[in-house]
């Protein structure tokens, strides 16, 4: 039971090679963060996984079956997608949008049944926004909208979830709430892929992290192993310090944080010429 990507290559007609030999895998209960600078191919990778881009080379296999060989509805029953945000032209309610998550389970010409309504309600309750069900999606806050989109993916009942920068438009508190839900989903057995621009989020909520640069995976493994000062500095071409912060006096509880070093030339590890992670621990 895995979503496995092997030596994936993808070209855009004008831009040329965007993904170049990408391999990674996600199993149940795992959360893979994909970190990479703008233009590194994160979105393209997600679009390949969703079956939107189908002209890739290499293989994407879903529980052992080739993605392109599966009918679209079958792919949707296995992979759910949470976009960064969504803007609707028409005033659909939060409940309407969550109910649309049931689409791949409907009969070809059917509409949602009572059971589909129940599942949509459970999904809304799961992310804690059942009280917003009747509000127009375009009128709720950005954080609430993100939760509604996550609820739609849950209503879809797909074992794999792809989240495209789910925290990008959110304030500090809502970012934490969304990460909390993402981590909880992995504990419930979902396989989660999340793209993010914040390395700290990988420490907070992910079991694995993949570093993507210029269409290639630079490193893949646990956040502890992969996220070093040296790797992050190279990834973002900027000196980055990974530091350990103790959360109480006895230092039993600790968290790792990633700090970009801005113009602190006086510090020994901040040399822009040698961003070589001397500060790790």
């Amino acid at each position, binding site marked *: 039971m895995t979503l496995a990507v092997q030596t994936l290559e993808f070209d855009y007609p004008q831009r040329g090679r965007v993904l170049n030999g990408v391999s990674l895998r996600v199993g149940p209960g795992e959360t893979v963060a994909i970190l990479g600078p703008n233009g590194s191919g994160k979105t393209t990778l997600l679009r390949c996984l969703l079956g939107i881009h189908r002209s890739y080379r290499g293989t994407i296999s879903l529980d052992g079956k080739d993605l392109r060989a599966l009918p679209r509805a079958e792919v949707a029953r296995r992979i759910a997608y949470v976009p960064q945000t969504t803007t609707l032209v028409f005033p659909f309610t939060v409940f309407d949008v969550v109910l649309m998550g049931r689409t791949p389970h409907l009969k070809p*010409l059917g509409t949602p049944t009572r059971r589909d309504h129940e599942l949509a309600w459970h999904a809304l309750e799961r992310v804690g926004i059942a009280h917003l069900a009747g509000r127009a999606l375009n009128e709720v806050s950005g954080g609430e909208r993100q939760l509604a989109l996550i609820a739609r993916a849950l209503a879809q009942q797909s074992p794999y979830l792809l989240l495209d920068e789910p925290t990008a438009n959110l304030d500090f508190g809502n970012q934490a709430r969304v990460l909390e839900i993402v981590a909880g989903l992995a504990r419930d057995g979902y396989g989660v892929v999340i793209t993010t621009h914040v390395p700290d989020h990988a420490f907070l909520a992910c079991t694995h992290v993949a570093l993507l640069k210029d269409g290639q995976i630079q490193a893949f493994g646990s956040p502890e192993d992969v996220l070093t000062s040296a790797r992050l500095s190279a990834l973002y071409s900027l000196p980055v310090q990974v530091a350990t912060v103790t959360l109480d006096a006895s230092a039993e509880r600790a968290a790792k944080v990633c700090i970009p070093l801005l113009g602190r030339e006086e510090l020994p590890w901040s040399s822009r010429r040698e961003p070589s992670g001397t500060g790790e621990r």
Partner: protein
Amino acid sequence: MRGAGERTRRAGNDTRLRVASTAVSDQPLAHAAARTRPQAGSSAVPRLMALLALLLAVGFVSLLIGRYPISPSVVLGILASALLPTTPATPDTMTTVVLDVRVPRVAAGAIVGGALAVSGAAYQSLFKNPLASPGLLGVTSGAGFGAALALLLGLPWVAVQTSAFTFGLLAVAVAYVIARSLGNGSLVVLILAGVVISAFFQALISITQYLADPLTTLPAITFWLMGGLGKATTRDLLVLVPVSLGLLVLLALRWRINVLSLGDEEATALGIDLVRTRLVVVLCATLMTAAAVSLSGIIGWVGLVVPHLARAVVGPNAPALLPASFLLGGSFLIAIDTIARSATSAEIPLGILTALVGAPFFIALLARARQGWV
């Protein structure tokens, strides 16, 4: 998004954040929500019944009004005698006026108005654009040229209608093929192809008008392009066949049409085959519009304005929006047509009145749109 999350936040004994809703903390929330659940789906049925009643009422009132005003009881008697042969017959002239003139005209108004409104509603969802109308991909311009050409050649009325229908379908087919061969499935390319094809057929219409005899053919072409139901006969109700076909398929696809309005990426992620679904929706909307226009000539605004009105009544969900659009479109066009044939001694072309009524109506809708439902 607070609630349950806040309650469990402190329960964690390490720095890892707990997920908002565990099974236990969810219980009270679930029950609270169960009490306040709106009955999604079923709430539209009474409103649709009310719209059906409105259509029947408008249709009945329209049977009473005209150059020979007829009382409701007489009209009821005529309708009853037509349906039940045992009932005694009423005077001949009135029977002829009601059954042979007004009933076909009212039925044509319901079919044409309904078809245009449903096509417009489907296009607005498909193109994710509240300004989309049935003529977007060129069907009305194509039909206009087809009719003008047949009139120019002096063909009989049946040939004019057939030519309008055929050229309407042809115009959209050309636009679709151009978009498929040039674009990568992009909706913008399809819209642009439709705009180009519309402009092309408009030019062809102008050529026919330029060549037409200014005393006989030119007025006929001009009247056709302004639309009207004055020539509707019982035989014209044959357009019910393509209109019903398109309507039934669109109704069968009602949930998919809904999901299309989420946008390409999300609809694909929900398992929708975009290319195939779009093709079927375009085909059905074109079939309905071409059939309607072949009966009535070009009637603008109904397909643009009525879906917005329907959305205000039943909301944006296609399973309710499509039937609501049909019923409201029918009521709207029957009402406008009744004014067109009875307000002055000479009949006002229908397309002129729908624009005169539709434009201020649309501005009123835009004013409401600021409150958030468009």
